[in-house]
């Protein structure tokens, strides 16, 4: 937790999303994980310092089958394709409940106060103990609104009927604030908001639009969680350089994952915002980690530490997740973190 308070720790903390069946098989000898205890155990055996888990669906919710291929509807009415092992565990949303915006009139969002939402988190908090931080995951206002409508509908409606997009975003913000507050009461150490604002190249919507349709809501979420005394980590893929000032201004404590391929420069971000936020990620999960040589992984990790860790406020992680990255390769990265990530950070020549 010291890293989040921008203080130097004995060593930089290690984290990642363990989205990889091979890792569970090799570390625990089984896949899929049988429950929260397997997630915690796998995290422990890898020697990581934090675990991330979503809030659960409501207790009595049963996935509704959507087709014979195994697709299903989630609690929001989003049609999710069956999750293939290599892309586990995030389902692809194949159809959107508000693709036809006229359906907004009768749309009923899920109830944030429904029983059962904190079940996994409560168990994780119990099992994690003192040495592992629990990050409670909630959704982001922009990306979840765009997923309810689909990107094309979102874009058109944003121009033609902006009030409808605001209404959806308001609904999503309310849900995730209330769920997040419950996760805090259940004992999470950090709230992690998953918001994606851009592609590798550019933002999904313009900075001008984001300042209306996304950022004010994000700020409200951050405020609500911080008011309850918990730091907030923002997961945001893509090239967000054009709105980075605004993003930092929402009051977030951690920025993740700072993607290399999306032109996010951790050195620049450290220099500009290092006194305000903790930086997490930036080891290239697209080329270096899955395809590079051991030497390349070692060098990139060393370089990242030497730039981001001095003075504290750095958490080592890939710049997306461990999807498609072998256990050995992930371990190489974490081992470099253990070896070279001890404060005070010495000059490392990559």
């Amino acid at each position, binding site marked *: 937790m010291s890293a989040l308070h921008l203080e130097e720790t004995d060593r930089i903390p290690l984290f990642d999303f363990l989205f990889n069946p091979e890792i569970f098989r090799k570390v625990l000898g089984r896949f899929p994980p049988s429950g929260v205890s397997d997630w915690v155990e796998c995290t422990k055996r890898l020697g990581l310092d934090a675990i991330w888990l979503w809030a659960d669906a409501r207790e009595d919710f049963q996935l509704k089958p959507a087709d014979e291929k195994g697709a299903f509807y989630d609690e929001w009415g989003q049609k999710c394709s069956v999750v293939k092992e290599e892309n586990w565990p995030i389902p692809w949303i194949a159809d959107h409940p508000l693709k036809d915006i006229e359906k907004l009139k009768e749309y009923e969002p899920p109830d944030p106060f429904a029983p059962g939402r904190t079940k996994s988190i409560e168990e994780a908090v119990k099992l994690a103990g003192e040495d592992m931080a629990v990050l409670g995951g909630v959704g982001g206002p922009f990306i979840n609104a765009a997923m309810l409508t689909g990107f*094309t509908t*979102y*874009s*058109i409606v944003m121009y*033609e009927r902006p009030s409808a997009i605001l209404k959806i975003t308001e609904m999503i913000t309310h849900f995730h604030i209330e769920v997040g507050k419950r996760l805090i009461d259940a004992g999470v150490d950090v709230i992690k908001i998953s918001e994606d604002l851009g592609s590798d190249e550019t933002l*999904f*919507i*313009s900075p001008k639009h984001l300042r209306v349709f996304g950022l004010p809501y994000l700020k409200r979420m951050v405020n609500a969680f911080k008011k309850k005394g918990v730091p907030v980590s923002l997961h945001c893929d893509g090239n967000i350089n054009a709105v980075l000032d605004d993003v930092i201004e929402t009051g977030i404590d951690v920025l993740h994952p700072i993607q290399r391929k999306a032109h996010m420069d951790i050195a620049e971000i450290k220099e500009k915002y290092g006194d305000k936020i903790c930086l997490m990620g930036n080891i290239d999960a697209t080329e270096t980690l899955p395809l590079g040589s051991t030497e390349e992984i070692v060098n990139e990790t060393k370089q990242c530490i030497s730039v981001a860790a001095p003075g504290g406020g750095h958490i080592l992680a890939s710049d997306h997740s461990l*999807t*498609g990255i072998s256990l050995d390769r992930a371990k190489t990265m974490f081992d470099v973190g253990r070896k070279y990530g001890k404060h005070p950070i010495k000059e490392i020549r990559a």
Partner: protein
Amino acid sequence: MSQEKILSKVRNSLMNLNLKEAPKAAKEAVESGIPPSLIVSEGIGKGMEAVGEKYENKEYFLAELLIAGEIMNRVLTVLEPYLRIEKAEATGKVVIGTVKGDLHDLGKSIVVTLLKSAGFDVYDVGIDVPAEKFVEKVKETKAEILALSALLTTSMMEMKDVIDALKNAGIRESVKVVIGGHPVSEKFAKEIGADAYGENAFIGSEICKKWVQQKQKSND
């Protein structure tokens, strides 16, 4: 109203993302006797180029590209009956799809829009497409170009399988392959034996245009 003035109405309504105005302008154009192929090239094509410039200048973002794509589809729906009568020569034929194991289609749909606006016949085979299906479609349509998309690191190697399948079917030499998407790069394109890497949707569609021009020149 002069022909140029009517065409500029189509162009501007697309460039300014006017969803309601664009199909009306296209209808007006076609009813005034302007050949639909000219409306596609001078109206939609030029309008889409202007949208592309605005994107490069960071005036437009992905949302605006998607709206432009939707406008183009609506305009093409208006023009379709007339286009069929005219039987305009297409610029070229492209088979496009997202490779097996990958369900993402945002980037692909933007490329489809740009290719259509440039007058290509586009055969979109969808998402999660196995190698054999790409081969089959290239054979069936005799397309000059195959465009492959992927967003996931876990599915990018599938692109190599598609290229190998083209080789095995004996049609690798008859089709140019361009790849695009988050995990791929120039280097990766070379490694798997693709002909080009489209860093973004605009570059990808420009590559296709260039190939077709080269082919036409060598045929002349």
